[in-house]
């Protein structure tokens, strides 16, 4: 009989996955990962990789696309009160402003439900759910769940943040809790600082190419090392956002001074109690990379792990460019694009779509003249939202066309046309492609 790995929810840990060492808990000296510490704190029991635990959920997020299905599931759960409405937030980002009558109705249903139960509702136009989670909802040490796979972005704030489905969110709304299998953790240790013209997006595309699409399935990843310490919070969000593209349940970073500063200026202020991994924590794997010679990367169609150094895709014609989204819609991303586009004009017939991640970012970019530069260069600016990224609202490419997007997925049909191709790259690579109508190394535009 073939020897298959244990099933994902077996509640048992396979010691082979940990190199055959002693199971944690047998020896007091064995340490814990960040994910294990947060899950233990929130479930009130020891949480070793492989355990099933029921944990209190601090932040329960539902958005306009999958939240209505959570309300359906909630109705199936019977006559249930919402015990902790203060832990719930509703977001409006997937189809905003509503492109069709059925979605307009769903958004109204969400608004009515929120009003009935006293649930926080972030209005249409406020921002993309992942950006609003970090700006307004999530704190270090918390557990956040959301009806969106990229909820892992909030792990950059030293939280256990994970995407789930609508029924899971409904169950958490009804009980304040959710069950988890405590994940194994892969430690990714990053040494060196990124060279000029190479960005967080290039780094995470490189890592996804290395780990592959399911390399971290069922597992958490801890991203650590001097590279992460040197990065802005915006860059850290880009990296954690794409943790799911290697299958990760959570992508977690430690909290440092940059985290504290960002939280007090841009996020939810308050004392920060960082959750650090123990020095002797047990990891399923430890991967170490030196990044100081990393080059710009591109993910080619139709898989995110189909990454190559940008130079190998150079010259590919590009007909549409998307800059922004939850993945790369921070001020620093828009500034990078503006630095390249300033005083220039995009290629003829190019569609350049810019989507800031939140209203706050849009306002900052307006105040600093970044938006003016982008629009003068030929950009169209959309309201903060997901529309083009998920192929439901604006920016659908034509048959045979190529898109270079700073978003997080390039699956066939993702942007609404299965006969188009999507390439993923940094905001710099995207801006350079918008100028030349083809994939080019953006470093020639960056002094």
């Amino acid at each position, binding site marked *: 009989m073939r020897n298959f790995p244990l099933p994902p929810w077996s509640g048992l840990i396979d010691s082979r996955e940990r190199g055959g060492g002693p199971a944690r808990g047998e020896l007091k000296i064995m340490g814990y990962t960040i994910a294990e510490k947060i899950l233990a704190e929130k479930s009130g029991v020891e949480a070793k990789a492989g355990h099933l635990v029921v944990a209190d959920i601090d932040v329960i997020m539902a958005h306009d696309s999958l939240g209505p299905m959570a309300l359906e599931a909630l109705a199936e759960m*019977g006559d249930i009160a919402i015990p902790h409405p203060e832990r719930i937030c509703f977001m409006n980002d997937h189809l905003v402003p509503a492109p069709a009558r059925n979605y307009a109705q769903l958004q109204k249903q969400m608004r009515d439900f929120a009003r009935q139960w006293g649930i926080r509702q972030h209005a249409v136009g406020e921002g993309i759910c992942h950006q609003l989670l970090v700006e307004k909802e999530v704190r270090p040490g918390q557990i956040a769940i959301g009806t969106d796979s990229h909820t892992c972005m909030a792990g950059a704030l030293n939280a256990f943040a994970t995407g789930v*489905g609508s029924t899971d969110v409904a169950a958490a709304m009804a009980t304040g809790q959710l069950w988890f299998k405590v994940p194994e953790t892969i430690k990714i240790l990053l040494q060196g600082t990124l060279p000029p013209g190479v960005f967080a997006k290039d780094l995470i595309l490189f890592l996804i190419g290395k780990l592959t699409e399911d390399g971290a399935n069922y597992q958490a990843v801890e991203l650590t090392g001097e590279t992460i310490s040197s990065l802005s919070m915006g860059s850290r969000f880009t990296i954690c956002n794409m943790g799911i593209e290697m*299958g990760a349940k959570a992508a977690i970073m430690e909290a440092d001074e940059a985290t504290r500063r960002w939280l007090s200026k841009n996020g939810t202020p308050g004392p920060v109690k960082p959750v650090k991994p123990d020095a002797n924590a047990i990891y399923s794997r430890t991967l170490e990379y030196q990044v100081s010679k990393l080059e710009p990367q591109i993910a080619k169609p139709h898989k995110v792990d189909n990454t190559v150094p940008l130079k190998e895709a150079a010259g590919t014609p590009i007909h549409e460019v998307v800059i922004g989204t939850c993945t790369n819609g921070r001020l620093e991303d828009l500034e990078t694009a503006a630095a390249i586009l300033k005083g220039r004009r995009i290629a003829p017939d190019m569609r350049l779509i810019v989507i800031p991640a939140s209203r706050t970012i849009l306002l900052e970019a307006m105040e600093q003249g970044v938006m003016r530069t982008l629009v003068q260069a030929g950009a169209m600016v959309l309201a903060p939202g997901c529309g083009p990224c998920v192929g439901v609202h604006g920016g659908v490419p034509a048959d045979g066309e190529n898109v270079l997007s700073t978003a997080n997925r390039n699956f066939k049909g993702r942007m609404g046309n299965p006969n188009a191709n999507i390439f993923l790259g940094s905001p710099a690579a995207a801006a350079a492609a918008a100028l030349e109508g083809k994939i080019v190394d953006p470093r020639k535009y960056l002094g």
Partner: protein
Amino acid sequence: MDLKGKAHKFEDDINTDYIMSSRHRTQTLDYTQLAKHLMEDIRPGFYSSVQAGDFIVAGKNFGCGSSREYAPKIIKAGGISAILAKTFARIFYRNAINLGLPLVECDTDQISEGDVLRVNLVRGEVFNETHGTSIQAQPMPEFMVTLLNEGGTANFIRRHGKFQVPKGKG
């Protein structure tokens, strides 16, 4: 009780966009209607080829990508009785079990397009009637079987009010 049906074979890494593109949801939100678009971007005409009770049989990492729960929901609405794959993406796994759609992890290389299969979920047995061979699958963990037997998570919460997982496992 055994499930019996025909295998529809798919490759590795079938993501939620391939199961169904989001673009159809601006037209209708009716799951039965949406099911007609099942797998259409990668296999046009798939929905019409499914008979109630059939299986989707795939390689590794089935259901990767989005957390959209309508992916397993329309697979169920399309008449598929269970999905067999080498591995499943995590969020899809949760969503399917939550909805009461059984998943079987096994060596799917031993199954070909059109094979007639008999599946026993509790024992984790897959019998390939076309080839006359048996494949041992991982029996489902007790907690998952409980959720499936209760008709999914919504029914579980309605009956029990909260989650209880077996203590002391691990």
